[in-house]
C-alpha cells in the first residue's frame, strides 16, 4: 500500500522547521511504523538527500529510545504500544500521517524528530536510587517483600523513560515519569531510608529542568506505552507532603 506523510524537518535546534510531504510506496502491512520510515529514508538516500533523523534502538518496545507524535498522539493510535511496535496494518492505503517530534521546553530539539531527553537523567540523579555501594549487601532473602508489594513496585518500575507522558501533557509535566520511580522505591523497604529526601529532591529537579506542573488531566497515562498508572502521581504528592513534615 501507499501512505502520504507530513514529516517535521528541522536541520538543527536554531533552524526553522516545517512539515515536508513524502509518499511511502510499497508498504507491507506487516512492516512496523519505523520500518516504513526506514524505507522512506532509503529512497531519500538513493536521491542523495539527507534522510529523516529519528531515534530508535531495540525496536521491541523496551529501550524507550523511539518516540514521535503520530497524528498528534505520542507513539501513534494504539494504546500501550511504542511507535516501533506500531504496525502498518493499522493504516489503509492512501492514508495521510503527520509525524512530529516531542515538543517540550525540557526536551530541546536536536534535529528533525530527535529531541534531547537528558533532563530525565537529571531527575534520576537527584535521588532515583538507593544509596548502597557495591558489596556488603545483606542476603537477598533477608529482606522479605510480600508478592503484592513487589508486583506493585514492578508496575511502577516498568517505565521506559521514552518521554511520551511529557509530550502528551499540555503542561509538559514529567510527573508520571518522576512519580513512577518514587513509587517504586517508596513501596520497597530498601527505599525507605531516603524516602523523604528523595521525593523532595526529585520533584525539585523536575521543576528545575523546566518541566511543567501536573494538573491531573491524565493524558500521560492514556499514552504511556507501558500503561503506567496516574495513581503514582497521587503517591508522589502524598510522599511529598509526608516529607514536608518529616524534613521540618
Amino acid at each position, binding site marked *: 500500500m501507499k501512505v502520504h506523510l507530513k514529516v517535521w524537518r528541522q536541520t538543527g535546534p536554531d533552524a526553522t522547521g516545517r512539515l515536508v510531504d513524502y509518499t511511502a510506496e510499497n508498504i507491507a502491512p506487516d512492516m512496523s511504523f519505523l520500518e516504513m520510515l526506514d524505507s522512506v529514508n532509503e529512497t531519500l538516500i538513493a536521491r*542523495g538527500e539527507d534522510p529523516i533523523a529519528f531515534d530508535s534502538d531495540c525496536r521491541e518496545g523496551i*529501550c524507550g529510545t523511539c518516540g514521535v507524535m503520530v497524528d498528534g498522539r505520542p507513539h501513534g493510535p494504539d494504546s500501550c504500544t511504542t511507535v516501533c511496535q506500531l504496525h502498518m496494518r493499522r493504516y489503509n492505503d492512501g492514508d495521510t500521517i503527520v509525524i512530529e517530534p516531542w515538543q517540550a521546553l525540557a526536551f530541546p530539539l536536536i534535529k528533525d524528530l530527535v529531541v534531547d531527553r537528558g533532563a530525565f537523567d537529571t531527575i534520576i540523579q537527584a535521588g532515583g*536510587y538507593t544509596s548502597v555501594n557495591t558489596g556488603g*549487601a545483606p542476603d537477598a532473602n533477608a529482606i522479605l517483600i*510480600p508478592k503484592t508489594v*513487589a508486583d506493585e513496585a514492578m508496575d511502577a518500575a516498568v517505565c521506559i523513560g521514552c518521554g511520551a507522558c511529557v509530550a502528551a501533557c499540555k503542561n509538559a509535566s514529567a510527573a508520571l515519569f518522576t512519580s513512577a520511580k518514587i513509587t517504586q522505591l517508596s513501596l520497597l523497604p530498601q527505599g525507605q531510608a531516603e524516602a523523604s529526601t528523595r521525593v523532595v529532591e526529585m520533584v525539585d529537579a523536575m521543576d528545575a529542568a523546566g518541566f511543567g506542573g501536573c494538573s491531573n488531566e491524565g493524558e500521560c497515562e492514556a499514552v504511556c506505552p507501558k500503561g503506567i498508572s496516574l495513581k503514582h502521581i497521587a503517591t508522589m504528592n502524598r510522599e511529598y507532603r509526608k516529607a514536608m513534615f518529616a524534613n521540618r
Partner: protein
Amino acid sequence: MTLDPRVPSGPLPDKWDRHRFDSKLVNPANRRKHTVIIVGTGLAGASAAASLGELGYNVLSFCIHDSPRRAHSIAAQGGINAAKNYQNDGDSIWRLFYDTIKGGDYRSREANVYRLAQTSVNIIDQCVAQGVPFAREYGGQLDNRSFGGAQVSRTFYARGQTGQQLLLGAYQSMMRQVAKGTVSMFSQREMLDVVIIDGQARGIVCRNLVTGKLERYVADAVCLATGGYGTAYYLSTNAVNSNVTAAWRAHRRGAYFANPCFTQIHPTCIPVSGDDQSKLTLMSESLRNDGRVWVPKQQHDTRHPSDIPESDRDYYLERKYPSFGNLVPRDVASRNAKAACDEGRGVGESGLAVFLDFKNAIDRLGRNTVASRYGNLFDMYRKITDEDPYTEPMRIYPAIHYTMGGLWVDYNLMSTVPGLHVLGEANFSDHGANRLGASALMQGLADGYFVIPYTLAHYIASTPVGKVTTDHQAFNDAEHAVQERITALLNVKGSKSPRALHRELGHLLWDEVGMSRTDAGLKRALARIPLLRDEFWQNVSVPGDPDNLNKNLEYAGRVADYLEFAELLARDALHRTESCGGHFREESQTPDGEALRDDENFTYAAAWEFRGVGQAHELHKEPLVFENVKPSQRSYK
C-alpha cells in the same frame, strides 16, 4: 606465541580469593587522581562505572545513546542465574560452574567460569539492595524458575523484563555517582579509536554524535563494555544501533579477537516476515518451560495447526531428547528447528518456522496462570504478528542473539593491550562455545560489580603510567585517522545505502556462517566479503554533513567495520573444523547428527591478531586446561 591467561595457582575454589589478596590496592586518597574511561553503559559498563565511582576513581563514561539507560542489556527478558540454592533442589556454586562449562561445550576457561559462579550470589544481593523488584513468592521470598536447560531452579526474574530492571538498577547507581561527581557521563559519543601510548591504552577518540565534533579523552586505563557483534548478520535480536565498531577499532590497535565463530543462535524468535524487516524479536526462552515445540509429521502440511491431530504432530525435542525435552540448550534447539525446516516440515508462509504450543499449558494451568508468567511476551507476539498465542500456537525460528566470541582477555579481564580491559559480552571469556540462558546478565554484572574493581586496581597500582595530555602525538594521529575515514565515507557519493550493503552482508553470513557451516560455504563467504567491502567503498551513499546529527554517517562507519570483521568471523569458522556449541561444522557430526568436538586438536581459544585489512590474521592459541571437569560429549538425551 602462547597467550598467558594469568590464571592464579591453587585449588579452583580458592583462586579468586587468593588472587584478590595478591592483587595490589590503590590508596583511597589516591583513587581520585586516577582516571578510568568506560565505553558502554549496559550491565557491564554501568555496573563498572558505578562501582569504580563509589571507590573514588575519576570515571569517564561514554555511550552512543541519548541516555545510558537505553543500552541493549535492557531487552533481556528471561532472568539471571545465581547459585543461591534457595529452592533446596541441589544447586551449588560447583553445579553452576559445571553447567556453564558443559553448556559452553568445554571451550571456556575453568577459572573464569568458577569465579562467575562464585560472584553470582553477590549479584542478587546487590540488585535487591538497589530496589530491583524481582518476582516474589507470597511469603515474601524471591521466586526462581528453571531456565534454558538447567535442571535446577536458579533463575531470578522480574516478569519478562529482567534485563530492564537490572540495567535500571545499575544505571541508577551510576547516576548517583554522576551526582556525586565521581562519574562524568558523556552520552551520544561514539568511540572511534583507542589511543595507545608507550604500549598502554591511554585514551579514546570519539565523535560527538550531536555536533559531529571529534573529541579526545585521556585516562590511566580504558574499559570497553560495548557488547557483541550479532548485528554483523543484519537481522538479529540485537538493537539496531548495537555494533562491533569499538571492539573492532581496539582490535585494529592490537587487541586480539578470540573465537569470533562462537555465535549464539536463539531458538525462539519471531520468524522473518519480509525484506524490509529491520530486526528480529526474541521470545524469551522461558516460554519453553511451558510451551511444546512441534512440526507436522508430513512435509508441506498446510493445514491450520488446530486441524492437525496429535497423531500427525512431531514433538521432535521431546522425542529426541527425552530427559531434557523442550529445555535442551539453545544450540541444540536451534539446529533441530533448522533440521525440521530443511526436511520440508517447517510451518508458516515461508516454511521457516516451527510451532511453540501453549494449549497443554493453558489446559493444565489455566489461562490466568499462563498470562501471569508470559503475558507481556504474548502481547508482544500479538502486536508483531497479529496472531493470538492463547488460541493458536506461536511460530518461532532461530535468530542470531548473542556472541560468545569477543576480544581476548586474561583472568583480569585485560586484553592483549596493557590497560585495555574488556567487560561483558564484548569479551570472550566465560561462555565458551555456547552460552546458557540467563547467564549473560550474570556475566555482565559480575564483570562490572565484582571483578573489575579488583583487577583494575591491581593494574593501576602496579603499572606506572607516564603523564600525558590529549595534545600527545598519538592523539593527533588517532584523530587524524578518524577524520580521514569520515571524510572518505562522505566522499564516495555512490548509489547504495549502507543498509542495502549491510543487508547483503547479513544474508551472506546467515547463509554461510550461520546455524551450520561447511568448508565450501565458508570459502564462498571469504571470497565474497572482500568484494562486498570493495563495493561499499566504491558505491556507498552517505548524504548530509559531518558536523551535525547524521545517523546515516554513523551507520555507514559501522557497516564498514562489519565488512572487515566478517572476514575474520568466516576465517575463524573455517579454521575450526570441529563442531562445538554454537559452531556447527557439517563435516564434524556424530552418526545421529549431533555436534562432534575434536578435543585433541581444538581445545584452545583462538585469538587472532590484526595484520591489516584484507591481510591474513595471525592465529595465537590459548590452550584450555581442564583440571576439574573432564570434557565429555554433551548429551541431553
